């Protein structure tokens, strides 16, 4: 008996959300098959890969390739230009590490100036992520949304504690896109989407971040949350879970032991840079396989590899 392929398509699909403006604008979502199952139906928009830079000039001496890539780039705008030229990068994520009240405590006005410079320096879509402090993020997002008005920027993210201020100051006031961040739980993810749409934000302006973890650090929760969200969106046509998902992989993976342990402290583990690249590449691939519609990575080598893998699966 010959084998007959049974393509599995759904009547429901993931929302399409556009980031950026002009030729380089990126559309996230649109899929009506399970993640990466492009053999079931051609991909309308393949998953997107973004490259992350920070507002602070970090010490890259432990990562020679990364240091060489950003050599000579002193300002965030200069780094953004180099990042935007990385092979496979479709958007740039500017992370305001320096806004952390426990760190540099950069003011909202300073952040807005940086965001404006970065947005003007590149033609790729821009994603702005905060410092994980809910009050401070709300402040800087409001200022940055105004400064980058008209650029169709995505802000990562609004959370349960600050979704009203963040949602109002980004999506409602300036027509920007907004992320909805929840902690690896399908019900929390849905709840946040419900209250954000009740606030008046169009579902098409929302991108979910359902939480992430590095491979080995409770990734089973991330994988199962992604699996369940996609199942609810496609099989049950739950329109409060059909927003595309962006996973900031690098923000997790570059903080775990495997990526931060210097080679001299752990000689048998080998090159720290190779470890950091492998950690984010493996985690990103697993996220995409489970359901992320976009991932954010830091190292140009990881960006290139993941973009090439997606292209090879098309």
């Amino acid at each position, binding site marked *: *008996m*010959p*084998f007959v*392929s*049974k393509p*599995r398509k759904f009547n429901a699909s993931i929302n399409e959300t556009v980031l950026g403006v002009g030729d380089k604008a990126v559309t996230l979502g649109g899929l009506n098959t399970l993640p*990466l*199952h*492009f*053999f079931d139906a051609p991909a309308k928009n393949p998953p997107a890969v973004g490259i992350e830079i920070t507002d602070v000039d970090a010490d890259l001496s432990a990562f020679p390739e990364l240091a060489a890539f950003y050599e000579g780039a002193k300002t965030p705008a200069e780094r953004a230009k180099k990042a935007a030229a990385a092979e496979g990068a479709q958007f740039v994520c500017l992370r305001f590490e320096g806004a952390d009240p*426990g760190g540099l405590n950069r003011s909202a006005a300073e952040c807005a100036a940086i965001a404006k410079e970065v947005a003007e320096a590149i033609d790729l879509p821009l994603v702005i992520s905060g410092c*994980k402090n809910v009050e401070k993020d709300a402040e800087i997002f409001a200022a940055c949304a105004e400064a980058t008005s008209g650029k169709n920027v995505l802000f990562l993210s609004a959370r349960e504690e600050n979704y009203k201020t963040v949602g109002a100051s980004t999506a409602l006031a300036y027509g920007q896109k907004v992320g909805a961040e929840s902690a690896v739980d399908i019900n929390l993810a849905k709840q946040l989407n419900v209250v954000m749409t009740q606030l008046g934000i169009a579902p098409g302006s929302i991108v979910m971040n359902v939480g992430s973890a*590095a*491979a*080995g*650090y*409770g*990734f*089973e*929760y991330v*994988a*199962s949350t992604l*699996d*369940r969200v996609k*199942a609810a969106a496609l099989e049950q046509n739950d329109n409060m879970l059909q927003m595309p998902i962006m996973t900031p992989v690098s923000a997790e993976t570059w*903080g*775990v*032991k*495997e990526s*931060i342990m210097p080679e001299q402290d752990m000689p*048998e*583990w*080998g*090159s720290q840079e*190779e*470890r950091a*690249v*492998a*950690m984010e*590449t*493996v*985690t*990103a*691939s*697993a996220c*995409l*396989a*489970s359901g992320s519609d976009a991932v954010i990575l830091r190292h140009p*080598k*990881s960006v290139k*590899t*993941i973009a*090439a*893998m997606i292209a*090879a*699966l*098309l």
Partner: protein
Amino acid sequence: MALKGLDIFKLTPKKNCKDCGCPTCMAFSMKVAQGALSIDKCPHMSPEALATLAAATEPPMKTISIGEHKLGGETVMLRHEKTFVNKNLFALDLCAGMDDAAIDAKLAEADKVDYERIGERMRVECVYVSVKPEHGAERGAAVVKKAAATGRDVILHCCDAALAGDILKAAAADVKVLAGANADNWEAMNALATEHNLVLGVCCKDLSDAHDTIEKLEAAGNKNLIINICAESIKDAFSFTVQIRRAALKDGDRTFGYPTIVNVARLAPEDYTMQAALASLFTVRYGSVIVLGRMTYAEALPLFGLRQNIFTDPQKPMKVEPGIYPLNGADENSVVAVTVDFALTYFIVSGEIERSGVPTNLIITDAGGYSVLTAWAAGKFSAGSIAKFFEENDIASKIKSRTLILPGKVAVLKGELENKLPDWKIVVGPNEAIQLVRFLKDYK
């Protein structure tokens, strides 16, 4: 077609003899229907009933043993639907055409990675040895023996039945899987695999051809198979692997109810970053043996961690061993912090303490593998349980410091703990692990 408990009950003797270990025939039938027991546990079934039931209750995907490892036996497509049963294995890719120095270097490099993580030994379990006619049987057997000498299970990939036969004559005891059966050679390969009692790998360059070959092999009586995904492109390899699993579990196609081998080293030669990305993809989606060109710590740390995560049973929390974990070179005078044995909590808390650089003795108590708040709510992480742990493990004589940091979320335990451990200064720590770095630095 899965049978319902009642359908099975109709075929039982209905005597409630308890020979099967169940109190009643009905209870037994329900267990069989759930897949918890096999039908042959009942000694009183008629042969006709057995034949009817065996076909219907056969699992959708067979469990195949390779050495000490089990593969396959999966019942769900996604882990949250129940659980994944058998973790995938990793294999190192070798070719008989490589020179001895290169082979020795590859094996030595893989040997360096051998460590334990949450009670599981992490090392490459298999070696995948490809032999072609131009390499010859003698060379093939020599490489097989070299690979087997590392204590790993050898998968011999050879599509020439005569050559495979000669290699096996010299080295059958060192091989666990013979991969290379296809539409043309399946009879000869089947004879070899049966003679030497090996798992037979069926090449899958095309889903339909592979399906036909497996049907022929099954008709010939061989159900000890594994499907070797031999697609040329990454897209086809992923498509085949997913479709085979889907056909078996979703569409009841038992012909495809076998585990798979995916060689990512062949799909992305020399590009180890791409191989790691693909190995991750196939760990999450249905590869049973994943073959890589190398396994250094760079690939091993994320891949083994990922595999351990994906193949945990969602109904059972991952636990770490209770005890004292000295971090950042902590000694008996270093401050003490206490938390629960939930693996995720341990990894996050120990990671943050390591980031702080402050020498700290992290004490993990037995809290049933729950997170801090859950364990507290269940009464498994209380002043009593912490004090008992300190007493049983004689912490007071092992550590001279008398400062104990309590997770912020269970600050409520402070007073009671001060009563139970009067010599200790109880300090309430932060609510979230991420605040530990600052907390420990400021505290110091």
